[in-house]
């Protein structure tokens, strides 16, 4: 009996599982769903996912811990991922990261005491035409200067970007509208 995931997410989870020949394929999609509810992958959610897929919680955690986007510890409402890989490095990313750390008063990997921001040093996010680039909850902000970063943080804090940047954990806001039609499997 699953206990943690909401009824709406449980229904969505079951629809996802039905898309795959083998239920276990839905493991990562279900972890994203759980993060949509809680902001991170909680132990309770892991229990529910294990039950839905008929595997052990250790198997869920064992897979989830491989992936950077699945957070098994609490993170801020806004996870700011600052790319410092080669293309962004050549365009000033190291200074941008240092500035962000100073501005928010935390080092990469940490969360502000008010739970608002987590900073991550990211690998290439594939937006190098607008380097240095940053993602907030996986929404892109490119060509970012230190001043631009301060404005971004202020806009996130004030709620001005609420419609563009959902709280951390919400990945794809478009749900699949149909089930499987082709049959044959």
């Amino acid at each position: 009996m699953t206990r943690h995931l909401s009824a709406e997410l449980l229904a969505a989870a079951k629809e996802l599982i039905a898309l795959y020949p083998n239920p276990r394929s839905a493991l990562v999609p279900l972890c994203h769903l759980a993060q949509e509810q809680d902001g991170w992958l909680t132990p309770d959610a892991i229990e529910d996912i294990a039950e839905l897929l008929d595997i052990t919680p250790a198997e869920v955690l064992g897979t989830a811990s491989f992936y950077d986007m699945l957070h098994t510890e609490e993170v801020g409402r806004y996870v700011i991922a600052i790319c410092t890989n080669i293309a962004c490095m050549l365009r000033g990313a190291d200074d941008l990261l240092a500035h962000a750390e100073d501005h928010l008063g935390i080092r990469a990997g940490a969360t502000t005491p008010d739970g608002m921001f987590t900073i991550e040093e990211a690998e290439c996010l594939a937006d190098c035409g607008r380097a240095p680039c940053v993602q907030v909850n996986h929404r892109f902000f490119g060509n970012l200067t230190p001043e631009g970063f301060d404005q971004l943080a202020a806009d996130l804090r004030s709620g001005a970007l609420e419609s563009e940047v959902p709280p951390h954990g919400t990945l794809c806001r478009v749900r699949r509208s149909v089930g499987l039609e082709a049959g044959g499997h």
Partner: protein
Amino acid sequence: MAVTEAPRIVTSRLGYEDSHTLERYLATGGYEGLRKALSMSPEAVAAEVDAASLLGRGGAGFPAGRKWAMLRKAPTTYLVVNGDESEPATFKDHMLLERDPHQLVEGVVIAAYALGVSRAFIYVRGEFALGMERVQQALNDAYAHGAVGQDIFGSGFSVDVVVHPGAGAYICGEETALIESLEGKRGFPRIKPPYFPAAIGLYGEPTVVNNVETLSNLPWIILNTGAAFSALGEGRSTGTRLFALAGHVRNPGVHEIEMVKTTFRDLIYAPVLGGGILGGRELKAFIPGGVSAPWFGPEQLDLPLGQDEVGAAGSMLGSGSVVVMDESTCVVRAAWRITKFFWRESCGQCTPCREGSGWLEKILRRIEGGEGREDDIELLMDVCDNISPGVSWPPQQTTICVLGPSIPSSIASAIRMFRDDFLVHVKEGGCPHG
């Protein structure tokens, strides 16, 4: 030479703000390639792709037609789309997913028809939230339009297409790791042989894995014929290709260019392309095909953008990304940052890659940080040699996948081309670039 008048094959709609919508897609010839394909036999569709000589646009450059021909006809076969674009400085599939998702969906259905597949998965890199939303919306609309699902356009052919989100792991771009990930496991590359998932793929069944850009070419190829595609470019490198240009150039971005007819110099300096080096500075080095590729210097600028041409010169076109480093670049720092990336992204299965990447990262960090020793350069090359004996190109394989043997590329290049820069770091006890 400069830029040819080749047609824009995969970027024709990018001038429109609403290029991602079904409405715009249909108004610009969308799904006409699929209608034509469905009026042909699956074999004839596959023959057109073969005639196009379309090389895979993911990084390995394997001919798509030959990949398809390996697929064993079995009751259960799968098509998997690799949209896990993560090779540093590569950002072309990101653009295609966000800006023309219907073009990809159409390509997927054409491929599924040619292959006789009734289930396809589009694996989208987890970080591409907008791309995922655009592809899911495109799929929802394409189902409603009758272009995906049951009895497509009344042809009797049916295929389901499912979007699958990744969750942040470079290695999942390796096709067997991608399949493991799609099965709900850690993204560990599979031991070879078999070399191709066509033999044993998703759930152990025959599977074809194709890149986003590769499949996005199919609607045009079917509408205009494979011969028209192979008339572009030269030799084995046919058609146009997306090049992602980044680093110290005036106009970084993605450019669609006819293969072989254009050179690196054109790409970097032509006003309509890269526009030259930032601030009018001089070129120091460039990476011709993703960070796994050995570097080139100014003397290679006139090489054509062709797979075999770049291969013969000792590097690769790889994922089609070109990183420009100007004269102000600290190459020690560049090599260190690239190595740090490989260290973070090594899946950890194979000792040479897991341990080697960490040791190389530590040594490069201490050189850059002013703690370097005189014999560190030899030590770096020795560790590289342990990862990939001979540090040759193409590299010797000591690991399950090609991530490990890619690690020495940037280090060996930087040392070979700029040994003095390393020595200065050691002698002066730090980075002269600050």
